[in-house]
């Protein structure tokens, strides 16, 4: 498939994530939208990896060029995402414990 298609799809997903972050008030939803952004990036990376593979050919000696590292990068992104989720949900739960709400609009003790 033409790479541009993938790019646009990924961007679309990414921006949907951004819009979600901008429009929702529920911390968890916002967080989910961020995960969506990450996944958009993953798709993009995989697409690029295959694009480079297509260009270089599988016989290409240097690992740099046949797109393997992109897929590994995706793997690392997932790792990081998992870690983030652990921490993030912990924070949200802690917040909920204290305020019984996950509404970010109530987060305005700190301002100015």
């Amino acid at each position, binding site marked *: 498939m033409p790479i541009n298609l993938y790019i646009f799809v990924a961007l679309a997903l990414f921006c949907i994530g*951004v819009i979600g*972050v*901008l*429009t929702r*008030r529920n911390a968890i939803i*916002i967080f989910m939208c961020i995960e969506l952004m990450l996944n958009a990036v993953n798709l993009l990376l995989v697409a690029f990896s295959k694009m480079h593979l297509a260009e270089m050919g599988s016989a290409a000696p240097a690992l740099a060029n046949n797109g393997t590292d992109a897929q590994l990068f995706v793997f690392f992104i997932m790792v990081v995402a998992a870690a983030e989720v652990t921490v993030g949900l912990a924070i949200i739960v802690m917040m909920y414990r204290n305020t019984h709400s996950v509404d*970010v*609009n109530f*987060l*305005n*003790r*700190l*301002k*100015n």
Partner: protein
Amino acid sequence: MKNIIEYVWLVPLFPLVGFLLNGLLRNSLSKSLTGIIGSGSILASFIVSVLIFLDVKAGIDGPVIVTLFDFISFEDVSIPFAFQVDQLSSLFLLIITGIGFLIHVYSVAYMHEENSSHFARYFAYLNLFVFSMLLLVLGSNYVIMFIGWEGVGLCSYLLIGYWFKNIDYSNAARKAFVMNRIGDLGFLLAVFWLIGRIGTVNFSEVFSKVDSLSSLDLTAITMLLFIGATGKSAQIPLYTWLPDAMAGPTPVSALIHAATMVTAGIYMIARSNILYTMAPTTQTVVMVVGLATALLAATIALKQNDIKKVLAYSTVSQLGYMFIALGVGAYTGAVFHVMTHAFFKALLFLGAGSVIHAMHHEQDIRNMGGLSKKLKTTHLTFLVGCLAIAGIIPFSGFFSKDEILAAAFMKNPIVWALAAIGALMTAFYMFRLYAMTFLGKFRGTSEQEHHLHESPPAMIIPLVILAVLSFAGGLVGIPEVLMHDSHSLAKFLEPVFAESNRISVPHHPDHTTELLLMFGLMAVIALVIFWAVGKYKKYEKTAEENTGFARILENKWYVDEIYEALIIRPVNAFGKMLGKLDNFGIDWVVNGVGRSVQYASRQIRLLQSGQVGSYVLLMVIGMIVLFALQVFLKK
């Protein structure tokens, strides 16, 4: 032994020493000691001056320059601290130290009421004045002259404000100082101009290089110098300080505001006569100003009732005559009149002082009268003075004033006519003064009458000496018409004015005209005198105010009020206004910057709303902007 002229620095040195002694030890010295130091120092320098004068009279080739040390010197300009002795300066030395000495002696008695430290302060000031005056006349360049020039101004400030408790007196002192300062700046500017054009201020070099100056430069320089002179010598427009200066002790008025300081202007112009001779425009201005001043002051003097004020205005008007003389190029006449005027005006002031002393500081002549019986010597000497100033032959005033009038006539009969009118007025107000003071019957309070007494000898003797001088002083300058080749003063001063005389030859009217004018005028003057005496002998104190013209004269043509309204008030208002502007204008702007920053701070901090949503929104907008800039504007 070396020539005494080499020791000319002794002349100012003695007064300086006297000043230091009296000034520093004023709390420990006894009055008598103070008096001795004060008068003695002047006497010493008088003696030296006499010796110098004799030397000069014996004949010197050209002025003698005595350099003490290098005062200011930068680049190629060098201003030495040097004295110049020639006929002119030696003559002035005599006048200053001589009269100065007499007045010191007089003061010892006059000021005896003061407590010793103030007494010492008084003599310190007086010595300092003499010192500065001597610097003025001895200086061999304009800068040294300027030092003396400002120095005498300072001393007159100090002496006018001598009784500093009285705020009016110190106001008068300030007025005198500031007005002098205005003039002095003209002088200073002239000095800079000279340096800028010919790079020197030494008289000898300046006068030798005078040809290298353009006529514009000459006019400018001479005009500026003349401005200085108007300040010092109380000419229009800067004359109003002199009458107020009468706030000082009477001997001070005699010495500073009659005999010496006020003649500094005349001296200066006479000294730089060559410049003026080559700047006819300025000469005309000088003459006109002199004439105007002479008349204006005379008119005012007609209606004054304060004995010292009358004398003050007469001084102004006499100075006017001197400037007329300078204006028409009769330098000798000017100097001559300076000399005689010094004699009789000092005499008159000291006489007035004696009267005031007797009247316990009463100065209003309406409260006097008939003093001739009690104060005989004073009366006689005063009469001599009046006759001298009125110009009655053979009193000194006659000769000097006549010389001026003659010169004026040659320049322009109208000038002569106006000057003559002035002379008539002079005679009138002087004898009005005389009559109201000494003739008629006493109008003061009884206890004043009870205390009336002749002054002590220390005051009388100077009076007598001065009376003699003002009677005989004129004989050094007997005009050609009366006695052939007997104008010894002119001959004596000849070298100083040689150059000017060479450029513009002074010609005399033919003898018949001159005699006609001379005696015609004198006859009229005599009539005026009799009229005045007759009119005011039987003067009675009356309640009613002067009206019309008399009132204007009594109020001195309202000149002070006009100055007040036109200059002083606006300046003060301007100062106040600027003061406001500084606080609420410029400073407001400066603080305004600070305020606006704080305002911005208060507003911008609202961006920090605490809402994650808005934060992210702003971030995204920021990203969009950066992208727009980077990706699109750049391509």
